[in-house]
């Protein structure tokens, strides 16, 4: 019986130990992925914990345990996007209810010279496949190869998406 088979036939106690180790290794990554989408610490922690709980629940179904981090990143990214969409819907309803002023434009934010706010706005404007690449590349010192591994993409694809994302960000922020 090979190693993979042993892993696949792991008992619940082994799964718990494995998950504890995975949690220590990847918990912060899950939080940062959620934070990159939500930019709210409490919301990010909530979503990341949800993603980790789901990962633990379905850990036995994951055939290739080496892909745990990329699997977790995808779960977390998806949950964070869903959470943000729900929050935006809620926000729109509340805005419609009280009829407040529309959100600030990029120009208004530039006038306030808040570079980071403009940066996040520009990142939010990117297509999702560019956004996830640029965010993961800025996280935990990930190189192109690591981002490619997390997203199950060829390194060349990650590289071209990364440079396209950076160029669009530069154009938006100039």
């Amino acid at each position, binding site marked *: 019986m090979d190693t993979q088979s042993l892993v696949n036939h792991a008992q619940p106690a082994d799964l718990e130990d494995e998950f504890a180790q995975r949690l220590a290794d990847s918990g912060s990554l899950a939080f*940062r992925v959620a934070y990159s989408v939500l930019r709210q610490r409490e919301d990010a922690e909530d979503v990341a914990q949800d993603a980790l709980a789901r990962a633990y629940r379905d850990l036995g179904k994951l055939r290739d345990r080496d892909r745990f981090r990329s699997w977790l990143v995808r779960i977390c990214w998806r949950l964070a996007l869903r959470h943000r969409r729900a929050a935006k819907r809620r926000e729109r309803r509340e805005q419609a209810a009280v009829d407040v002023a529309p959100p600030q434009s990029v120009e208004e934010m530039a006038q306030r010279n808040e570079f980071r706010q403009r940066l996040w706005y520009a990142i939010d404007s990117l297509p999702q496949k560019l956004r996830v690449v640029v965010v993961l590349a800025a996280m935990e010192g990930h190189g192109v190869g690591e981002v490619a591994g997390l997203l199950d993409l060829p390194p060349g694809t990650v590289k071209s998406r*990364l440079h396209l994302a950076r160029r669009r960000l*530069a154009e938006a922020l100039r």
Partner: protein
Amino acid sequence: MTRVASCDRWREALSDVGAGAPPPPGFERHLAECGSCRDAFETERRFVRQIDAELQAALTVSPSPEFLPQARRRAEEQASPRGRWLLQWLVPVAVGVVMLVLGIQVGRRDGVAPAPRVAAVQTPSPPPPLEEPTFAVPVPEVTPMPRRAEPAPEVRPVEPEVLFPPGEEQLFLRFARDMQERRVDRLALLAAGLDPGEVQGIDIPVVEVKPLVIEPISRSEP
């Protein structure tokens, strides 16, 4: 080719390479020869680095100390036998209860007892007075109701129904018509035990016909 035209040709490449794309052939040679393009490229590259640095700084965030213990607790709660039991049993039980309630409701609606089907006639208007009506209207025999039957006919309290023995409908209608027309039929007088020759005038009291109230038969009864 003038220098301006040559620089225009590399303008796109400045942004691409500054953002991390591989330099096209001849790009580096042009930078070595052209000071303005070199400066523009450096500006572009610094700007992209600033973006990267800002993004890295923004994402160098750590969760609170409670994050990991909470995540573990939450994961264990979701995967606990109690949680599994809830997932596996709560939903089917809830569905079963809903189905049971629906079944009871449907059964009650279908099981409403219909009124006995008896020959009936509507009294068109209050009958004229009659001296001591001697008719005893027998109640027709009520047969047990079928469990599933047609809906009960609507009982109208303002228009009472009159029951009469089977086979005597025509006679009864005739009597009712006579009472409406305030005339006395010979046969009716004979049937009432009166001598038609002695009758001079009849003071017919108002016959109060009470509406038929049909009480539903309880299902608990045998």
